[in-house]
């Protein structure tokens, strides 16, 4: 019997590809946002709203889904150059899938790349895609304890959107508890309360994306 020193970084390859992706984007002046959140939290409708309200920024999108191209079709219909990426049994996008998606997108003149991750508050946390900002969308319908139950994703995000605030009372959710939990976990986190349906908070949200794209 002998000992073999291996010292191999099991997850390092994802980070290497992510760095390559970031370089690819930087060279083209494209800012990328990794949009994470649970199933039904409002990721796709947010992109549809941005398509409507952020007309002076040229955008492209990568829509991650386990299966189906439903989200990709919605985003395309909203007027954004989009490629759908299916992950199959994997519950998150990884840098490698993004690398492949680059080759299928027309990125000419694009300033902002929106990457809609698979609906999941757990697994996408650990996967750098090569993005410049990470955002998480939680909605009041997930329960006002959803933030404290999934702390990891909030640790790494730059922006937290608390969505569907218009129906918080109807579902018995305390929005301020969600805000306080998110602030406690990550004091640097920018928090915007929205309703994609009524338009609450959308001006602030659109401004955030515009500043990122033009900044």
């Amino acid at each position: 019997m002998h000992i073999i020193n291996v010292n191999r970084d099991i997850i390092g390859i994802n980070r290497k590809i992510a760095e390559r992706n970031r370089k690819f984007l930087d060279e083209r002046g494209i800012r990328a946002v990794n949009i994470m959140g649970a199933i039904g939290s409002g990721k796709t409708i947010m992109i549809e709203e941005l398509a409507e309200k952020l007309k002076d920024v040229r955008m492209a999108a990568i829509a991650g889904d386990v299966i189906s191209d439903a989200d990709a079709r919605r985003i395309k219909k909203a007027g954004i150059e989009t490629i759908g990426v299916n992950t199959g049994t994997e519950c998150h996008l990884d840098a490698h899938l993004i690398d492949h998606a680059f080759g299928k997108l027309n990125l000419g003149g694009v300033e902002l790349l929106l990457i809609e991750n698979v609906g999941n508050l757990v697994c996408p946390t650990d996967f750098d895609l090569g993005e410049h900002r990470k955002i998480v969308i939680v909605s009041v319908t997930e329960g006002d304890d959803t933030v404290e139950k999934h702390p990891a994703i909030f640790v790494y995000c730059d922006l937290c959107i608390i969505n569907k605030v218009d129906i918080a009372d109807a579902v018995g959710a305390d929005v301020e508890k969600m805000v306080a939990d998110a602030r406690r976990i990550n004091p640097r986190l920018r928090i915007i309360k929205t309703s994609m349906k009524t338009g609450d908070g959308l001006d602030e949200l659109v401004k955030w994306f515009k500043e990122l794209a033009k900044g």
Partner: protein
Amino acid sequence: MRSRFPPRLCGEQLQCKMHELSIAQSVVENAIDAAEKSGAKKIKSIELEIGLMMMVNPEQLRFAMEIVSKGTIADGAKLKIIKKKVKARCKNGHVSTIGGDFLHLMSSLSCTKCQSRDLEILEGRGIILKKIEAD
């Protein structure tokens, strides 16, 4: 006896999957690769260093490793997990080394000097296959 896993989509993807079953698969693949390169026929033990920020469930990982190593030269190998503490710098400039367990650390992560939760994580996000014992 099968000693290799079927190829995935492309070479680059070999090491880039995660969470307990995918971690297990990557670890076993890399361990087999290292063993074969040194001419070994049987892996007796595998030593992993896992950063506490990875939120890995060690029991699930052990179970997943048993499953994915079946029928390979890593079948029955003992798994040793070394916990790598989190190193973080808070907004006040204190650098803390923070220990704990994989699943609960994240909820209470704070500077050990001033309890600030405004932290920049310096270490604790990796999974390293340190060494294997093989015949």
